[in-house]
């Protein structure tokens, strides 16, 4: 039996009798950078919240890091970045980081180190003393990412991490994600609707209306669908005529 960082078995979810996630099974291997790709409203966030244990699936099982979701202990091994920034606006960036660091029970020394590391990574070191209410959208996004990385978790689940971030920083963040994967052997699950980010993933899962329409390496998908880019793959895999 292979070890998967995340595995979903026949997971299904509806909101008010409207099916958002059709029964789907999915395995995410350890140590890979996996992209969850699909237009907005296709169910990416719903799927991720179920993996986090924040939503209860109507059917099916979810396992993460060999623990059945929901599991309290599991949450200390996951770095989560929500789609909408959930920050304390009346606190400074540093106070936000410290607050979350404490929730992960980091020792005081570790905390100082990790706060500096995470802030440096997202280029917020000089803005840490500013109240988050005065941050720009991109800065808030970066702070959310820093919070996800604080406790050095083996599994990162990031919901649209690069929305609203300028191209230069976006490139840097992707470089850092690759480095985290390659050097620190982290498993990373990223959702995006930006097709240009898809190429950088080891595995691409394309989601449409709650169905997985494609699941393979970027190269294999391009070859299989004889496509130039992932927009084309997406459309062809979804059975749409170009």
């Amino acid at each position, binding site marked *: 039996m292979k070890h998967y960082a995340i595995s979903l078995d026949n997971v299904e979810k509806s909101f008010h009798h409207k099916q958002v996630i059709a029964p789907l099974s999915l395995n995410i291997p350890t140590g890979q950078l996996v992209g969850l790709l699909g237009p907005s409203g296709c169910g990416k966030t719903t799927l991720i919240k179920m993996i*986090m*244990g*924040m939503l*209860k699936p109507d059917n099916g099982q979810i396992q993460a890091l060999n623990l059945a979701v*929901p*599991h*309290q*202990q599991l*949450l*200390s091994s*996951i770095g*989560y970045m*929500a789609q*909408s*920034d*959930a*920050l*304390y*606006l*009346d*606190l400074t960036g540093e*106070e936000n980081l410290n*607050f*979350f660091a*404490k*929730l*992960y*029970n980091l020792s005081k020394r570790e905390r100082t180190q990790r706060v500096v590391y995470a802030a440096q990574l997202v280029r917020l070191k000089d803005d840490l003393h500013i109240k988050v209410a005065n941050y720009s959208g991109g800065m808030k996004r970066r702070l959310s990412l820093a919070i996800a990385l604080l406790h050095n978790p083996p599994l990162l689940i990031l919901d649209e991490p690069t929305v609203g971030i300028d191209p230069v920083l976006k490139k840097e963040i992707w470089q850092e994600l690759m480095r985290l994967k390659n050097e620190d052997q982290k498993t990373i699950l990223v959702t995006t609707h930006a097709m240009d980010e898809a190429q950088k993933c080891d595995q691409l899962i394309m989601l449409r209306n709650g169905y997985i329409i494609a699941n393979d390496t970027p190269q294999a998908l391009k070859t299989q669908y004889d496509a130039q880019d992932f927009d084309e793959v997406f459309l062809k895999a979804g059975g749409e005529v170009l």
Partner: protein
Amino acid sequence: MRIGAIVTRIIQQMRRDRRTLALLFFAPLLVLTLMSFIFNSNEANLTLVISNGTPPLIEKLQAVDLHIIEQQNFSVEQLKEQQYDGWLILGQGNVRLTLLNNDPSSSKVLIMKLSQALQPQQDAAPSLTTDYVYGDKDTAIFDIFSPMLIGFFVFFFVFLITGIALLKERTSGTLERLLATPIKRAEIVAGYMLGYGLFAFLQTVIIVLFGIYVLDIVHVGSIWLVLLINMTVALVALSLGSLLSSFASSEFQMMQFIPLIIVPQIFFSGIFPLDNMATWLQKIGHLMPLYYAANALNGVMYKGVTFSEIATNLAVLASFAIVFIILTTFSLKKYRVL
């Protein structure tokens, strides 16, 4: 540790929110002061007529700030006419007090001051008979009123501020984000109770001290008991505020709980006399935390009862708080199944 993180965060947030702090600490004092002006205006100037008084007694009465008029032949008619507060006749072995009682709170103060002055006498305590020109001994307004008022303000402001704070946590998504960390739901609730409890505690101390020492609200019982009752009231308000905030989706909706939850408690908790109300309707009061708070506060401040006599009221209040805390913890299940 995690609870501590939440407490620290709440303190940081509150320190920056000057308006909320002002609302919490000064608004109750302002309203209480206004109330005391309305109900207590002439308390400082009490006039007592004395017949057959002895010089040492008169001295003693003057020592407790009473304005004394000596007159041997006096009548109730004259008392009414002159609008003096009371008339004291000293006879053999008995003392007769006639109170005008047009303002019950002045009468109470007068009785208190009299008993203060008469008590230290060595010889057999003279039996004091009290007559009332208007009303009777049960017609007190602000004295019964004010202890409850203190409890009410503690309840109202703590309820509102915690409710809105937790609501903000919900609507901004930070609560959901919190639940994506390994924190337990009970830890969040505990952090909230402690963090806001701290401010509620400060508020309670300020209101009680202000009420007793600045506004001179009558209090015969122990001030520690008054603080203890009010802290329990604050805890009920804290937990009820957090619980109800999960049924509101905006600050405005939180305000809508005021006529629903707060105002009925004012009517039923005995701040206004309930005697004319149908019995079954009066029973509704027993479902309301402020009813027990008012009972306990009134008992301690006005009647001077001891801990054992308010223990039941305190226990009921504490049970309210515990139930609300448990329900709040459950209400967080909406966000995380664990």
